[in-house]
């Protein structure tokens, strides 16, 4: 009886919680089929740094990123949606998106990944930039195909310049304003780091 009373009190006292804005596909059925035409089904998992490891994981992610999470909206409790795509029981890959602050607004950077974590494609669901067309072009997106977390591990996002080692050195920054270009690179690196922890077996125990 005591437990029931406490449960009731707990429920009555629970304040309304406003969740932080996450990043999920607006039309997952369509998008999953577009990136994985042979897929037959997909599952959706909701992850957050808070849920997967808390402050310790946040510190680790920030360390790997090379920069602290910044601003009002890059927080420990932001929910992330991981789409896992199958063809019957065969795992085809993953789709995972992050919000990244750009020069003129949030950029939603979705990575389409192989089961091994290699980039198959990049999808900018939301992108407000003077160079939107360029960033969405095949010319910009195709050099990222095949890259993985390891390729970005040594990339210093705070330098705001391309590294002088391959394969990232082969990327081309737009000739004009490069702010959004480096924001996108930061978004991709953040996305890959989070996927390492959410999906590819880097757990709280082995941090």
């Amino acid at each position, binding site marked *: 009886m005591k437990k029931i009373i406490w449960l009731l009190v707990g*429920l009555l006292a629970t304040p309304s919680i406003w969740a932080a804005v996450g990043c999920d596909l607006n039309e997952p059925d369509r998008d999953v089929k577009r990136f994985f035409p042979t897929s037959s089904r997909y599952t959706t998992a909701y992850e957050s740094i808070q849920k997967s490891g808390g402050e310790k994981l946040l510190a680790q992610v920030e360390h790997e990123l090379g920069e602290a999470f910044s601003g*009002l*909206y890059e927080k420990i409790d932001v929910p992330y949606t991981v789409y896992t795509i199958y063809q019957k029981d065969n795992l085809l890959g993953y789709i995972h998106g992050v919000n*990244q602050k750009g020069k003129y607004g949030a950029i939603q950077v979705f990575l389409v990944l192989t089961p091994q974590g290699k980039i198959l494609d990049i999808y900018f669901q939301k992108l407000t930039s003077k160079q939107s067309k360029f960033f969405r072009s095949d010319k910009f997106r195709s050099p990222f195909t095949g890259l993985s977390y390891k390729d970005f591990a040594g990339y210093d996002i705070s330098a705001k310049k391309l590294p002088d080692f391959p394969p990232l050195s082969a990327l081309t920054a737009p000739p004009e304003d490069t702010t959004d270009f480096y924001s996108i690179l930061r978004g991709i690196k953040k996305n890959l780091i989070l996927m390492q922890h959410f999906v590819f077996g880097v757990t709280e125990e082995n941090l």
Partner: protein
Amino acid sequence: MNFFTLAYKNLLRRKIRTFFTVIGIGLSAWVFITLMGFNRGYEESLNRDIEAMGFQLLLTAKGCPYEAATLMLKGGTGLRYMPQDTVKKVQNAPEIAQLTQMLMHAEFDPYKGEDGGTTVFLGIDPTTYPAMKPYFRFKQGGWFTQPQANEIVLGYEAAELEEREAGDLMLLPNTEQEFKVVGVLERTGTQDDGMIFLPLQTLQKTFHKENLITMLGIRTHQEADTAVFEEQLYQLPDVQVVSMAQVKNTIISLVASAKVIVLSIAAIAFLIAMFGVLNTVLMSVLERYQEIGILKAIGALPKQIFYLVWLETILLCLWGSLVGIIMAFAFSGVAEQLVRYFLPFAPVGNLIALSPGLILQTLGFIILTGLTGGILPALRAAFIRPLDAIRSEN
């Protein structure tokens, strides 16, 4: 051993039956609380939304009244415009305490999503609009510095979605102009949270809507006769007057049929609970036929037997009500999502208002229903003849 302990032990003797009866009553109580909470929460939220508009009358270009209602509460697309000099025609009316002109503009953004999407902007008069929304508080920054400045104020959710803070830049769709975010509002729980505000003149110039507005919000003096004033406003050409009361009535009538169904379901839930209790307690009385006969043979009075059986009913209803209350609180979020999904329009805010008053009301109703349902079995038990009961086979 007192009556309460005896009743409690009697119920525990048949744990499974008691459990399912309690669950049945709990489900009925849950349905009742949720539906009654919705009945009140919806209206409260709607009133709050309408109050949050800041004005009692709204002038729009002539068109469908439902379109006007949508415009006010959701922000519309396919908008109609009226000339800005409409302001001059009404601003000197003695009934008006405050007046503010607004331009709502929906612009297609080709880079929003895979196929593009529409973003809605609200152009406001910085000299009159803030007074209409005294509850606005800034999380960062403040209102525009100039009436023609290339500046933006963001509602809480719009800022969160765009990851913008005061001092950041924004780019409006289909323009190359940069706009500076000068303020981010605190959360209000209204449709303003998702709004992108610009100075009226800036929005008119940017999207080539010079001298056009979509809405004129009017707050009247307390002593003004709003109905008469509305009639006067109707005389203006190509202008439509929408009062808050009208909007509220329109929406209330839209959901009225849903409310009838809601109340019917609540009534059915009660009947189910009542017959459930009646059935369980009656079964229990019949099973204890001999036992009750012996009780009477050793001196129990009919009123004591009646009281004992009724007490069992009260206990069942009390436990069931508690289960229902817990379920109502635990699943109110899910129920709210379902209501939002099925209703044509749902206001911002809490749609299912669970209050201590409602909880007590439910508790009272369920116990009353149980007591009514318990009369027959209690009477049956009270009038069992001891000799017949002792002689009986079962």
